[in-house]
């Protein structure tokens, strides 16, 4: 079916991008950060497939190296959000009562801010070091997982096997982490895949308003934002290619996330 072909293509794209990122030192034809006065603003061509920027740095090499930064930031933020969210959600869902109340009010407060606005505020306040960008994105993602896990927990808790485990005399923590949590994973994995794409977009938008990853470390959003001032003078490649890199990567993550959703959890199909 075409739907599957598309998803497989997307999965292939993700694997390729990850592969390229890992192999950046081997694959990238040039040093991504070294300015070259003789090579500035070369249009795409044989020597530089995707052209060079105002510093004469090879765009292809920078885009490949930037994949490391973007994927790492997205992965770190997602992992951090996931772990925190899972622990909070599991506690809230299983324990209920006061713990549940406190956790849910915290989550509500974070969710009261549109994600990007909060990320913007946090990065502005904490300074835009890479680690702060990661934390900011992670914080905005925590509520999704907390709520997902909590509601799954509520559902699963009532199911028979939880009952069974309880009667066998398992300790509470074991129940949460070994019996109930694994059953919550499918929707969480779907969400995490989608979140990867969202994180990459957030970093890009932060870069555009001047709050993203610091130069000269290459990052797709910062590259595109920088290139924005050069489209009008005809140097369109600096703007276009990093944007395309973002688009392809996010698209791939979203398509895979979609398919995973269909595959793992038909109930969730179509819910944003």
């Amino acid at each position, binding site marked *: 079916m075409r739907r599957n072909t598309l998803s497989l293509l997307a999965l292939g794209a993700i694997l390729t991008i990850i592969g390229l990122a890992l192999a950046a030192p081997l694959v990238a034809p040039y040093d991504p950060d070294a300015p070259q006065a003789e090579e500035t603003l070369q249009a795409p061509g044989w020597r530089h497939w995707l052209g060079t920027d105002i510093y004469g740095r090879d765009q292809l090499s920078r885009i490949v190296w930037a994949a490391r930064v973007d994927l790492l930031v997205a992965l770190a933020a997602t992992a951090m959000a996931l772990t925190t969210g899972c622990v909070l959600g599991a506690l809230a869902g299983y324990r209920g009562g006061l713990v549940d109340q406190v956790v849910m009010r915290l989550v*509500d407060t974070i969710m009261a801010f549109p994600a990007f606005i*909060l990320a913007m505020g946090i990065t502005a306040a904490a300074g835009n070091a890479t680690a702060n960008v990661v934390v900011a994105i992670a914080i905005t993602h925590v509520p999704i997982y907390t709520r997902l896990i909590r509601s799954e927990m509520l559902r699963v808790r009532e199911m028979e096997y939880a009952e069974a485990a309880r009667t066998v005399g398992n300790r509470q923590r074991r129940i949460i982490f070994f019996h109930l949590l694994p059953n919550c994973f499918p929707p969480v994995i779907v969400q995490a895949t989608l979140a990867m794409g969202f994180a990459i977009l957030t970093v890009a938008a932060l870069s555009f308003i001047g709050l993203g990853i610091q130069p000269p470390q290459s990052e797709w959003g910062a590259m595109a934002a920088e290139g924005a001032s050069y489209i009008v003078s005809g140097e369109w490649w600096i703007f276009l290619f990093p944007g395309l890199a973002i688009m392809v990567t996010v698209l791939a993550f979203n398509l895979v996330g979609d398919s995973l959703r269909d595959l793992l959890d038909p109930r969730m199909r179509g819910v944003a």
Partner: protein
Amino acid sequence: MGLGRYVATRVLLVLPTLFGVTLITFALTYLLPGNPALVKAGPLATPEHIREMERQMGLDRPVPVQYWRYLSGVLRGDFGESATTGRPVLQDFLQRVPATLELTLASMLIAIAVGIPLGVVAAVRRDGPVDHASRLLGVGGVAMPTFWTGLLAVYLFFYHLGVAPPPLGRLSPGVMAPTALTGLYAVDALLTGNARALGSALHQLMLPSLTLGFSVMAPVTRMVRATMLEILESDYIKAAWAAGLPRRTIVYGDALRNCLIPVITLVGVVFGFLMAGNVVVEIVFAWPGIGNYAVTSLLTKDAAPIQGFVLFVAVVYVLINLTVDLVYGVVDPRIRLR
């Protein structure tokens, strides 16, 4: 849970959230590096002048006192003064909110007007070309950085093709703003029958709202498609098929109507996305809204407007989600059990 109790609980739950929101807003700007007194005192100010500024601004007081001053100010509608415009934040806000509102509403309209039909067709002709196209378009829309799409749009439609007006805000140069009724230029122009302003306002709105609308269309389409599929497979629709009702009646009558209810919940989600997108799109199109204001303030470390902006957005977002929940609770009693 009865409806009354549900409403009461839901409304009460908003209070701690709002309190948390003010705490976070305050903390964010308190932590913001850069001394606001220094900003205000200017580049060659003496240490005494800066200390005097700090005293005036209450920066020499303990943190809880500062928070209390902030909170009581907010409750009185005093959001402080902007260092970049030299005016009260509230005044700047009132001037800019309509711009943001107009853009947000127009984008939402586009996202819904395009997203719903697309979702319906995608569901009815499942796995057909429209389904695939809408999926790609939707996913593609979410996958592109908004500033990237926006700049691309400016470059293509304004610069190359000349079909869009210059990215110069809400009205073309030389066009006077219509008499203010709602603050939304397009609406005001329509109400006052000001054709010139209406044309200009809509023309200026075109690119930014398309950019923004395009970026949030995906969730609408996806949700409509999924709900529609679910409904089309439900027992009562199957019964309708069996009863031999015409296809048109079933799809566009019963199914569509039932599918629109869950779509209400989307308003909250879409609004969240739009608020985020606004910040970037307003800069790209020099749109004089609050997002633009917030970023300018962020870069000049102008604390009061940032506090105001984050607080405003959060409060509106909370209220919209509350309304959505309440409406949904009325429409679909099952939700009250959550």
